[in-house]
């Protein structure tokens, strides 16, 4: 019996060795280990074995089965690995072929610049608010210290709808709406579309965007204005950006200033980009005029504040080095794709 088992084992191992495909190994498994296989046949012939020898023979059969199974399993693994490797070899691709992209669209450069500005001011605790494009004369002019006869009304080349209703020339109108709400303190920025009667050319458009800023609280100082806008400039144009404040005049702020930033192209040495000056004019600002506060029902003895206005297109043109404002409104996909 023992010899018989040795023979079966030797034959099984030989057949395993000779197998060159997984199917053949499976056949071996069936032949030797299956229900009708040779080892099963041996077990079936146990009835011919003397009862006292049966446990021993049984053990021998199990050992043989285990040995065959082990070799078989190893061979299957080995063969599976070989098959997989062969398959991988046939699956080589050219990884330098073009990619398959979900062709995403692009944001308008104005919006990219706007979101940058919003991000900076939201981080400093400002709320973004909106005001109407079509506005009452009062909010655009009078409440901002620009009464009916003021020369500044001419300077701004206003589009009128009626004598009293116009297209806003500045987002500063939103300041007044916010102040009238009577909720203090105020920290807001108001982006929006503004309109002025300028013919279209490389640097002018009758419709463009501004971002107005307003802070009103107790003890707000000109130094706070400088600090806030310097921080803004560094965030927007890089941490080495320097700022310069020049006195200026706006009817609704006093003192007023214009802010220049050091040219982010040449760092202030002077280049073609900044016309050799090293500085680029970026925004107008100032301390809210006490009369403006009074008109909106805020006591200038208790509260002070600062305001500023930035041209969004100006920032977009500078930051992305766009040389013609008309490109912003043509919507040529070859332009938009670059942002």
């Amino acid at each position, binding site marked *: 019996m023992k010899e018989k088992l040795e023979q079966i084992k030797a034959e099984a191992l030989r057949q395993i060795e000779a197998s060159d495909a997984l199917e053949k190994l499976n056949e071996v498994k069936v032949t030797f280990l299956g229900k009708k296989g040779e080892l099963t046949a041996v077990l079936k012939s146990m009835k011919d074995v003397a009862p006292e020898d049966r446990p021993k023979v049984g053990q021998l059969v199990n050992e043989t089965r285990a040995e065959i199974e082990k070799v078989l399993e190893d061979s299957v693994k080995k063969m599976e690995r070989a098959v997989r490797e062969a398959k991988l070899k046939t699956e080589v691709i050219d990884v330098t072929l073009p990619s398959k992209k979900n062709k995403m669209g692009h944001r*308008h450069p104005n919006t990219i610049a706007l979101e940058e500005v919003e991000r900076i*001011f*939201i981080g400093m605790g400002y*709320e*973004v608010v909106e005001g109407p494009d079509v506005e009452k004369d009062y909010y655009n002019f009078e409440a901002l210290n620009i009464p009916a006869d003021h020369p500044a009304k001419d300077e701004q080349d206003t589009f009128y709808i009626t004598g009293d209703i116009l297209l806003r020339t500045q987002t500063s109108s939103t300041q007044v709406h916010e102040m009238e709400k009577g909720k203090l*303190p105020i920290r807001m920025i108001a982006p929006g579309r503004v309109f002025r009667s300028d013919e279209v050319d490389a640097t002018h458009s009758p419709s463009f965007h501004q971002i107005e800023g307003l802070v009103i609280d*107790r003890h707000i100082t000109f130094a706070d204005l400088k600090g806030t806008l310097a921080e803004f400039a560094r965030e927007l144009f890089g941490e080495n950006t320097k700022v310069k404040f*020049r*006195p200026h005049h706006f009817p609704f702020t006093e*003192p007023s200033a214009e802010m220049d930033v050091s040219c982010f192209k040449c760092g202030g040495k002077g280049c073609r980009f900044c016309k050799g000056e090293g500085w680029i004019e970026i925004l107008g600002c100032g301390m809210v005029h006490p009369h403006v506060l009074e008109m909106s029902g805020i006591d200038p003895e208790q509260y002070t504040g600062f305001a500023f206005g930035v041209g969004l297109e100006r920032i977009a043109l500078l930051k992305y080095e766009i040389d013609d404002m008309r490109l912003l409104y043509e919507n040529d996909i070859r332009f938009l794709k670059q942002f």
Partner: protein
Amino acid sequence: MNTALSWIKAYVPELTCTDQEYMDAMTLSGTKVEGYARLDKNLEKIVVGQIKKIEKHPDADKLIVCQVDIGGEVIQIVTGAPNVKEGDKVPVVLDGGKVAGGHDGGPLPEDGISIKAGKLRGVPSNGMMCSIEELGSDRNFYPEAPEMGIYIFGDDVQVGADAVEELGLRDTVFEYEVTSNRVDCYSVIGIAREAAATFRKPFVLPEVTVKGNDEKVEDYISVEVQDKELCPRYCARVCKNIKIAPSPKWMQRRLAASGIRPINNLVDITNYVMEEYGQPMHAFDLDTIAGHKIIVRRAKDGDVFRTLDGQDRNLDSDVLMICDAEKEVGIAGIMGGENSMITDSVTTVLFEAATFNGANIRKSAKRVGLRTDASGKFEKGLDPYNAEAAINRACQLIEELGCGEVVGGMVDVHGEMKEKVVLPFEPEHYNKLLGTDVSEQEMLNIFKMIEVEYDVAKGTLTVPTFRQDILRQCDIAEEVARFYGYDKIPTTLPNGEATTGKLPFKLRIEQKARDIAEYCGFSQGMCYSFESPKVFDKLLLSADDPARQAITIANPLGEDFSIMRTVPLHGMLTSLATNYNRRNKDVRLYELGNIYLPKALPLTELPEERMQFTLGMYGDCDFFDMKGVVEEFFESIGLHKRAVYDPNAGRNYLHPGRQANIEYEGTFVGYLGEVHPEVCDNYDLKTRAYVAVLDIPAILPFATFDRKYEGIAKYPAVLRDISMVVPKTVMAGQIEAVIAQRGGKILEDYQLFDIYEGSQIKEGFKSMAYSITFRAKDRTLEEADVTSAMKKILNGLEGMGIELRS
């Protein structure tokens, strides 16, 4: 405003700085310098020479050979200039020197023109005699220069002297941008005062003294101002025995540098005083003034008046006129009349220095269609005190220049003069507003320089009348800030109550719209808010379409920009067409912009501004791609229910069979469709295009960023497929409505998985197949549940003429 630095220095004699330092410092103290130009740019090695001898050129008819004394040395110069003679003193550029331009007076080359010794037709020439054009100027500013040929000096110059200096070109002209509140700085004196304060140097005003003769001006002229509100002050003086002649060189040079052409002594004096004091003056020929009386009154509606430029001007009763006893002689503050203008034969002159209501002048200048240097100054509202100083300055110059004899006294008509502004001196207030710690003494030093008087006893500040911009403490604070230095003010951050930075919900939804549009391949465009009224016809809107009710701009840039858009498609279609005609393939654009819907026309209240999310595309795409974008957007903002697409949208600009209104929970929220081919033709867009317009305000009430986890289904779903033959007129939406309505609580989902029209199906029908999913949250469904639900659905469908296929 342009002014030579030498003129400023006349009032700030101790001023010493480079041009660049001057520009920077003035700009930082609030007088913005736009730029400067050196008048001696590219003028090198140019001296005064005297022609000693002139001989003919041996080989050229048009050339002459000159021996020129350049001071201790005589050099030979060959020239073709026709105007020189022996003894003339001329500017000579020496070998190795430079001139600014050519003799034809064209644009000046950046680096000038170098002059070298050489030979002209074989005869050595060691330099060049210069015309005024070669020196970078022209006869407008040097009227004494000959029309053709070499500039010839007067006898008073020294041979060998610096010719550039003699011509007054060793100077720099600065261009200032003066802000509208600083009327006083539209004058040389005003800027000089700022310069003195900026550099902390003494400011020296010209001393004005008029001798005047023994006569009385009242014997020559009387003045009556009928409208004192429009004319707060009228000063008049008379000069007789006028001798018209050129003004002196120094005056001509200063005017020339300011861009004013010298004419004669009388005109130049009025211009000079206007520049110097910022006070426009007018000179009348007294012999033309009827009754020797000046009356200041309003014109009558419909009057016509001929100004001294020969133009007839239409007047109305808001225009203030200067009149004599019989007629109008000038439009106040704008321009004099032809009937009283000064000619070379004038003998007696009436000088007027007045102030007028600024707003009225501005309006009148618009009304008569004439804006002059004078009206530009008057419209800012001039200081009445300055008028007297200026007229006296003019009379002083008349005397000093020997231009005439000044009659004694001045006629001065004015109402109550405005009192000076007096403010308490509150140093703490200024420091608190500025965030500074400027000492009281420093503030007082600043006030002294700008002529704000401090009264120690009363503790008050008195503002000079020329500073009409200083009315309140904040204006004083600005003065402190300007001269203390904006750059020295510290930088701090506000430290009040903390506030939350945020983006309002509407803007967050707009941000999501951008994200989704871009994810779906759309790029953001921007279009104008105003457009042409022709747009409505281009979009085939019917005559009674409410969208034609648009707001009209009263003063548009042109018809093409004259109405506020009520439909957002014009900009989108124009942009698509621009791209198409530039051969850009597969273009997808979106825009977020307002439309403007009037509540009534003409506008009595502000219109409704509705933010529109507009999408447009052409190329490799169809209606359902667009529908997909709409649904992606809806899902992203929490609109999870199925929107209803109503094909009966009735929009003329869209394909009649390929358009839908979009409704969400019974509310109209937008529309989409293929653009009508005729509209495409109107926009020169020769391809199919698709658009969608979503009305953000209508969507907002449904939108939310809240999300709730509902668990993952624990019990198995049961799937049923139904296959139908459906009349072509029945839409998928109708079938889905039946499924949704009749599926009951256990209905989870339904999806169309096959649609077919063709030869296999009978005429007028289509085959459709839906997969319907049922599931209960709390149990495994029984066969009976599903069968019952399906039965209800099938009954409903059969009622619509739908045949079920096995």
